[in-house]
């Protein structure tokens, strides 16, 4: 086994490889786009939002005169609920984005490449948030498009660039981004897709009902501690109907709902064996 002059197995690169946060983020983006199911979920979200917009517009159209009289408000009433579709699918997409790596063991490959680990969590969160933002806006526009087509039969015409419409779309997008970050953190902690989806949807759908039932009707103090409260206050915040005193409390509550899981997820990421 003496040295012979043979070509090296791999040609050296022009620049030495190096891990940077931008590159880790780019890799996470590639992970999301290189899988068919991500695209399917995205398309489904947009399609169902459009369908929901049309459906709600149809119910509004049972009284065309009232619909026309409602003006922009009618339009917003038809596109805002599409965010519920987004809640379901985008949170699931965010959860799967995290948990599939644990399920397949791919996480070990990822952490072997980026042993500092926290950049991976941050990069995943950013990629998921950006995708949620894009999906939310596109879904809202799709819902607006179909509902406008239906509502136009009453003579109602609203512009997509009407300030009220834009505010509604913006608030929905902001809410879905928050929910996505929450989903990513929960999924990082639980590592299991079924448990994570159950917890996120439970917080979204079941918890508000449970709180209302347990504390008796709409007890303001208790319901304000919910993550979903942030959704409604965000809408009100943007349309300017929220009293300033509540704003402080709502920001604190929203921050807690995000920061506590973030801290826990960061700790778990660094400390746990993979």
């Amino acid at each position, binding site marked *: *086994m003496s040295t012979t002059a043979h070509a090296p197995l791999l040609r050296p690169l022009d620049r030495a*490889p*190096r*891990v940077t946060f931008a*590159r880790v983020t780019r*890799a996470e983006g*590639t992970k999301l786009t290189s899988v068919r199911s991500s695209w399917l979920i995205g398309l489904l979200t947009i399609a169902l939002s459009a369908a929901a917009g049309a459906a709600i517009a149809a119910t509004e159209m049972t009284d065309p005169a009232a619909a026309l009289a409602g003006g922009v408000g009618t339009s917003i009433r038809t596109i805002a609920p599409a965010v519920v579709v987004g809640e379901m699918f985008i949170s699931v997409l965010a959860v799967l984005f995290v948990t599939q790596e644990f399920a397949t063991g791919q996480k070990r490959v990822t952490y*072997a490449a980026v042993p500092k680990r926290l950049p991976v969590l941050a990069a995943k969160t950013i990629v998921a948030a950006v995708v949620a933002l894009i999906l939310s806006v596109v879904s809202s526009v799709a819902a607006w498009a179909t509902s406008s087509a239906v509502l136009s039969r009453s003579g109602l015409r609203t512009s997509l660039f009407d300030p009220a419409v834009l505010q509604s779309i913006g608030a929905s997008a902001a809410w879905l981004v928050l929910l996505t970050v929450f989903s990513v953190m929960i999924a990082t902690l639980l590592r299991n897709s079924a448990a994570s989806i159950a917890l996120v949807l439970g917080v979204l759908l079941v918890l508000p009902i449970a709180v209302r039932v347990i504390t008796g009707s709409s007890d303001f103090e208790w319901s304000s501690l919910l993550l979903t409260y942030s959704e409604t206050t965000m809408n009100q915040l943007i349309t300017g109907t929220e009293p300033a005193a509540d704003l402080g409390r709502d920001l604190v509550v929203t921050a807690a709902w995000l920061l506590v899981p973030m801290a826990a997820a960061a700790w778990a990421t660094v400390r746990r064996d993979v």
Partner: protein
Amino acid sequence: MGTVSLLRSVVDMIEVSHLTKRHGASIAVDDVSFTVAPGTVTGFLGPNGAGKSTTMRIIVGLDRPTSGTVTINGNRYANSPAPLQEVGALLDAGAVHPGRSARNHLRTVARTHGIPDRRVDEVIGLTGLESVAHRRSGKFSLGMGQRLGIATALLGDPGTLVLDEPVNGLDPEGVIWVRQLCRSLAAEGRAVLLSSHLMSEMAQTADRLVVLGRGRVIADESIADVLARAGGDRVAVKTNAAERLEELLRPLGGTVTHVAIDRVEVVGLSPEQIAGAAAPAGVMIFELVPVQASLEDAFFGLTDDSVEYRAGSARR
């Protein structure tokens, strides 16, 4: 084992020092220390559950040790600016998203380091995956999955390779390919740590062996030394007078084991000495064959007490 190639400018080695890993009350890795030297292939052997995979995971920072350190070229793995250039690891070939194509899987790893697609295509070529590069990895056979895992390990052109059972599921051609690949990598000056259950392959691929049993190092020597442990050279003899031969050989220092009515195994004497003792006494010899210990025998001899999981029957 010959001169180390100077194709690589950095001297690469893994140093494991007093590594211990506990899970609650049980110990997975118990005060393990060894070195994987550059330019050599170090075989990592041990029964299932001996702690080989845990040790390998600790080397690349996936598990945190209870105590002890692992350094790659003197630094901790996590502190490297380009970890994939330090260590290329194959720990679990199935660790791929089934919906992703092989090429995209490699790209998601390559991009973390800014490694260009050119290198991705290069490792695909090196591991023979060109024809299936765009196929979804969920559809891969076991062998193709292994090749993809090896391709992933090579992405960073690493100075050290840590391969956990790389020949698992490969056909005979693939097994030889891995052997040649490991030897080529070592010839380039890299340090290769390779675990396997395929003894015959290990004997031909590795220069040194580190044997683990119940989390402890029970041997850390060259292949030749491990084989010598298995009882040195024996000679198989076929004869017409086994007992007479035994009487003749015992005073000369030979230990004789009767294997069959006309066959014995002699330890401690050369074939020449045996023939020399038998001929004048009129004992006829029909076969006189030196038998070299196999790595399997050596392995079983070393680890018999350390086997963690053993099937019920057939105790020797």
